[in-house]
């Protein structure tokens, strides 16, 4: 069932055109060919993470590791600062005659707050960069897309791409031997 509905010019505003594939291999090679054909504004959808898609789609490395590093540094420094300030200035206590700034005792908590800062920034950062939670997205308008979380693979070329053309792009997607090509309503 490879029906192209791209000829209906009176259809509502489009998000893009979506091709459905049966295997991860087909998706990766389709994405790669779409990129070689000059398409840039596109995304692939799959039920499993596919490392090769990053290269096939020409995705840049994520900034997440940098965020996590910063989160860890901020977490560690805050933990130590809290200990330093509370133990030497706010509430100094004499514990067995040790100096108020007894730094070796402050390391375990500093370590834990470093970990906490890094983990929180990994978690919050990943969802924020992914712009999730997002309850609505045009791709969910495609009925077949319910299988994107199960066993099917999708490539969507978006209308914002400078090379996007309703007819030419549909034909191009057809040439990749998909299960089907569908328009994605906005």
């Amino acid at each position, binding site marked *: 069932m490879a029906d192209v509905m791209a000829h209906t010019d009176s259809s509502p505003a489009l998000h893009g055109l979506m091709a459905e594939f049966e295997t*991860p*291999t087909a998706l990766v*090679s389709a994405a*790669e060919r779409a990129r070689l054909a000059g398409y840039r504004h596109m*995304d*692939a*959808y*799959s*039920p*499993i*993470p*596919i*490392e*090769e*898609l*990053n*290269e*096939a789609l020409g*995705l840049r490395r*994520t900034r*997440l*590791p940098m965020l996590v590093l910063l989160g*860890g540094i901020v977490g560690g420094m805050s933990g130590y600062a*809290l200990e330093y300030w*509370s*133990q030497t200035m*706010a*509430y100094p206590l004499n*514990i067995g005659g*040790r100096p108020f700034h007894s730094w070796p*005792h*402050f390391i*375990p*908590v500093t*370590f*834990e*707050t470093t*970990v*906490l800062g*890094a*983990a*929180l920034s*990994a*978690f919050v950062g*990943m*969802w924020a960069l*992914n712009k*999730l*939670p*997002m*309850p609505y*997205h045009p*791709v*969910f308008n495609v009925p077949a*897309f319910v*299988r*994107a*979380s*199960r*066993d099917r693979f999708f490539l969507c070329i978006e209308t914002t791409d400078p090379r996007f053309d309703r007819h030419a792009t549909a034909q191009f997607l057809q040439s990749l031997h998909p299960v089907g090509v569908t328009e994605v309503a906005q």
Partner: protein
Amino acid sequence: MSVVQEREYDYVEGAAAGAVRGVPPVIAPGHTFETVNDKISGVILTKRTPIGWFLGFAIAFAFLMLLNLTIGKLLMEGIGIWGNNVPVGWAFDIINFVWWIGIGHAGTLISAILLLFRQQWRTSINRFAEAMTLFAVACAAMFPLLHTGRPWLAAYWLFPYPNTMGLWPQFRSPLIWDVFAVSTYGTVSALFWFTGLVPDMATLRDRAQSKAGRIIFGMLSLGWRGSARHWQRYEMAYLLLAGISTPLVLSVHTIVSFDFAVSVLPGWHATIFPPYFVAGAIYSGFAMVLTLAVPLRKFYGLEDFITMRHIHNMTKVMLVTGMIVAYGYANEAFFAWYSANPYEGYMMLNRMTGPYAPFYWSLIAINAAMIQLFWFRKVRNNIPLLFVLSLLVNVGMWLERFIIIVTSLHRDFLPSSWDMYAPTRWDFAMFAGTIGLFLSLFFLFIRFLPALAMFEMRTIVPEAKLQPEHHG
């Protein structure tokens, strides 16, 4: 050359890993994306709940009610209802705390450390092991909180917050390190667990027949759509969380051991404690994973996913970590003698021949002698026997904590202050109650959430493997 071709060799470990002679596969042959989805989500997306589930949950829930009763009694009357008293100021509360938190460690080891080591067999057991971690941490946290007697008044010396009294916690105390370690551990485990659940929530959203199911799983899935851009950041976050959790889990039991090792009490003041405690934690945790995995795979027919490979590997991890623990015992005995310190020497003598000696020798029998059975393939293949052994391991590890804590305290430096310790019925009630809490949570988890990570299981079926292209 296309990216597809370069990838090929990466996947030899994949679903065909069972090709290695004599090693069972990590997933039974013949599975596809949809069979994995069906099997795992079928447990959740069904109106029929097995009668056995209700039975098990009812028993667990009865014990949970016992916990409520005990807590009520404790809050009304105070911790005097427990058996601990000078000189044994710490007893069941800390024994059970250490026991539970140790059990949790296997979940993090499986989800984080085995991920970093690319151990593919972790895939089918990580989700419920992580759930086990969370529930075990919840049970563990009960004890330090409740042993304060009036937890709502304890906040100011446990947590650093600006209070009207201008007081701050004492950061030179290992007990405060413990508060930070355990709360960080609980938080990070929950984040890791939830992150892993999101793509599975999307699968459940798309498979749910009922409207309520679609709405609930839809909200929990955060609108996950499997975008390649999302997966890229997701995988990076998952890897980073694993990398962060690895030193974290090692630090948690290290800090728990500092509760003892930083003191100057014979039997506690030992440099072997951190590694010895961490190994013991992983040892007991794997025993609990096995205790949970054996009935889980049996009753839900998950033998294809939790294969003999998993069972074998878990017993091997228990064997290794158990031997490290046994080395710890030997080391303690050696230092008691080699230090030439009469108090250290007496502590060891009292453990071996004193009033609690039967417990000491039981733990040696289990943790040092019995685990040698795991050397034998016949034992590793005998699942009912392994189930019993895994329960015994947790008994052994509980006894270890009992011995470390009670025998070190009850006869210290001054014979005039020696005394015996015996738990009261409320001590036992609270311990049994936390087991009830743990099992109740676990029963709810296997009924309402995917007990195995569907999306990760999908990555190990043959379908997920990229095929090399046959063109120019």
